[in-house]
């Protein structure tokens, strides 16, 4: 009779990588649903097309690398990457934009470094930045929200994906675009002047951010990540906006509420910067990591050339993460100075 010899611990908890990834995917549902309601099924089409592509790509590459492709695909991490990227892409983007973005994210963002767990940068943001720099025109075509333009149907959307041009007037300026282009109007006047900016942070955008906030709160409740990075980012962004508000002149950087609930703020706070692989590891480190992203997002939004800034801010801080880690090691038991 032979006994099995393994080392301790012999018990293990309920956490599984694939379950973590599945929860993240589930948590994007409210946000995606609200986006679909306001901007039509464009994002949904992105996610489905991009997801299928990403899974195929991951499977092929891991097989080529001599790894177990089934195991690689079944941890669902590649679906998280593609889904996050496709949420960030403009709805009704042409198919080739998605193909380039997904391939860049999976291959250049993740697999060249050795696959899951080894990538120094957030793969979805790598894909996004490559597209933003290479195809600025296509990347700035955001759809008009419900009530301000036609919301296309499913079939129309699908046809448009492969034969661009089928949908008229698919472009509209996002609230962050409008704020950046504003030169003459007081901030409050700008909000009332432009129909897109009614509500607190623009038609649809407020609700979309709220939905991503809800998904993020659920992930926090499920203890998929800690509160440190998201809260630090939101607080830093709010404080920066408060300081740059200057009472709402035409030079104003916009209100804190506007910054919190417009653009990709909540999506970034709970779905992008919480990527554990490319962020700082200690809780203190994550506070710094998140706060610096919040600050950078504000600076690039207000002073930079791009209306939104999440992708750049995240990639820059990904660079800094090991540095932050080095200086934020927690105090190990028995090494703090003696208590009084």
């Amino acid at each position, binding site marked *: *009779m032979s006994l099995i010899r393994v*080392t301790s611990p012999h018990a293990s*908890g309920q956490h599984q*990588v694939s379950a973590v990834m599945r929860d993240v995917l589930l948590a994007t549902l409210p946000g995606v649903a609200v986006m679909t309601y306001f901007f039509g099924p464009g994002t949904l089409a992105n996610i489905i097309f991009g997801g299928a592509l990403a899974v195929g790509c991951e499977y092929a590459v891991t097989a080529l690398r001599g790894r177990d492709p089934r195991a690689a695909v079944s941890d669902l991490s590649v679906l998280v990457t593609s889904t996050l990227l496709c949420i960030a892409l403009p709805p009704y983007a042409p198919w080739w934009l998605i193909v380039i973005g997904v391939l860049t994210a999976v291959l250049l963002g993740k697999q060249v470094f050795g696959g899951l767990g080894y990538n120094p940068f957030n793969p979805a943001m790598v894909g996004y930045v490559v597209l933003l720099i290479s195809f600025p025109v296509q990347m700035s075509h955001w759809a008009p929200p419900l009530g301000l333009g036609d919301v296309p149907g499913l079939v129309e959307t699908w046809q448009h994906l492969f034969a661009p041009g089928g949908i008229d007037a698919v472009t509209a300026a996002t609230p962050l675009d409008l704020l950046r282009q504003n030169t003459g109007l007081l901030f409050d006047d700008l909000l009332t002047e432009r129909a897109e900016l009614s509500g607190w942070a623009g038609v649809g955008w407020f609700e979309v951010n709220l939905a991503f906030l809800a998904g993020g709160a659920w992930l926090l409740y499920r203890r998929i990540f800690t509160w440190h990075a998201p809260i630090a980012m939101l607080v830093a962004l709010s404080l920066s906006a408060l300081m740059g508000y200057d009472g709402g002149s035409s030079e104003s950087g916009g209100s804190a509420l506007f910054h919190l609930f417009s653009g990709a703020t909540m999506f970034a706070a709970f779905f992008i910067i919480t990527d554990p692989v490319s962020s700082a590891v200690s809780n203190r480190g994550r506070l710094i990591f998140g706060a610096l992203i919040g600050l950078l997002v504000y600076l690039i939004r207000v002073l930079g050339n791009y209306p939104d800034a999440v992708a750049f801010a995240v990639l820059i801080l990904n660079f800094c993460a090991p540095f932050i880690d080095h200086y934020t090691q927690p105090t190990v038991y028995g090494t703090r100075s003696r208590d009084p």
Partner: protein
Amino acid sequence: MRAIHDIHGGIHPPDRKSLSRPGELRDAAIPRTLMLPVRQHLGVPAKAVVAVGESVLGGQLMAEAQGAMSVPVHAPTSGRVIDVAPYPLAHASGLQDICIVLETDGKDEWRLMSGVTNWRELSPEALIERIRDAGIAGMGGAGFPTAVKLNLGPARPIETLLVNGTECEPYITADDTLMQCQAAALIEGAQILAHVVGAGHILIGIEDNKPEAIARVEAAALEAGANIEVATFPTKYPSGGEKQIIEILTGQQVPSGGIPADIGLVCVNPGTAVAARQAICEGRPLTHRIVTLTGEALARPGNVMACLGTPIEDLLVEAGLTLGAEQRIIHGGPMMGFAVSDLSAPITKITNCLLAPTLSELPLPGPAKPCIRCGHCAEACPASLLPQQLYWYARAKDQEQLTEHRLFDCIECGACAYVCPSQIPLVQYYRAAKGQIRDSEQERKRSDNSRDRFEARQARLDAEHAAREAKRAARKAAAESKADEEGADPIQAAIERAKARKAEQDKTP
């Protein structure tokens, strides 16, 4: 009411303690043969003092301690020594070591034993001597010789004797059972140990998932009188780690690399306290201990009082073991215990639990996936380490970074591996890395030694050479000065001396 401090991290695995019905204690049968390893403790093995064929009585000395870091071994029952040779032990690496094999005669005859009741009048040194002679080593799992732990000297004044009744590992109920069944003995044992170390205060810490044990110990403490405090605290793994329970109950941390005595505490397991009382009050050496037999592969799990040296197989068969496919037998608990490779190996002074789980109960870990740096391990670590960083450095064999990230403050509790979503056997990496670092330290020490020796030899040779040179120079100088004094050329003088000698030789053919 004592303030209870929280520790960093920790986990809440299902505790499965009711399976072994804590509080019920039965006597295990005396097996036909007992295998008593000469080393059941941390330190130097004892040396067998019985010969093959010799008859022994229960309580008789069979192996004597070798120096301070060693404890003796006694016969748990009467019988005949039939072998003294290496046999497989319950050990993580399946090591063999010298065992005294005792064929029991079933009569269970004991030698005469005499204890003292007036232990308060004995000096600490005398009590420590008796504790050492009784073969007591820490019964919580490490097996540290108790006499060494108690012998602290005046440099470390002890305020509190802490009895660690946490037993935070899932499944194990040996200490729980002991506290329920032998509460009065535990209290007296703690009083003896407190007297030995000069502690004015006795603190007994018990996790709040053992209400029965708490009630019994509190009642016994009340009866015994002043300065005994029973503190309860919330159940969390690994609160029972020595460093952890000290922080929970005092708010203080044992300095890294230090021992509890550095902050005025001595921490003992309840079993050790009871064994100390037996040694002092009854003169009875440590020959038995309570073992939890548990796991769903056993038909009759429970706690037994077993002879040290009883083969694991005997105990498990008596408890109704059904071996399943891919069966593991775990010595200790599911978090820190090790899987034994040979069921003929005996239980020792440190065996608190034998766990026979079914596969569905404790599934074997799946293949490890890549680390996603989720940080759950860092949240769970009771030592506030960064387990995932340690993992990366362990894989890279970066000893400098491992030491800088304080690998040696890891207590190997397994909380990190328990929560890891990628099922990485983290503790295994840390153990291996610690071993490698110790090895290279040894290697470094050896080469330092060789270098020191070489340099010392070189210095000695140089010094001898210099001394010789100096002597020669002195001789030369002396000769020169002598020549100067005589005013003659020394070479000319030498030539003349030689000529004279030659002439002398020619004259005498």
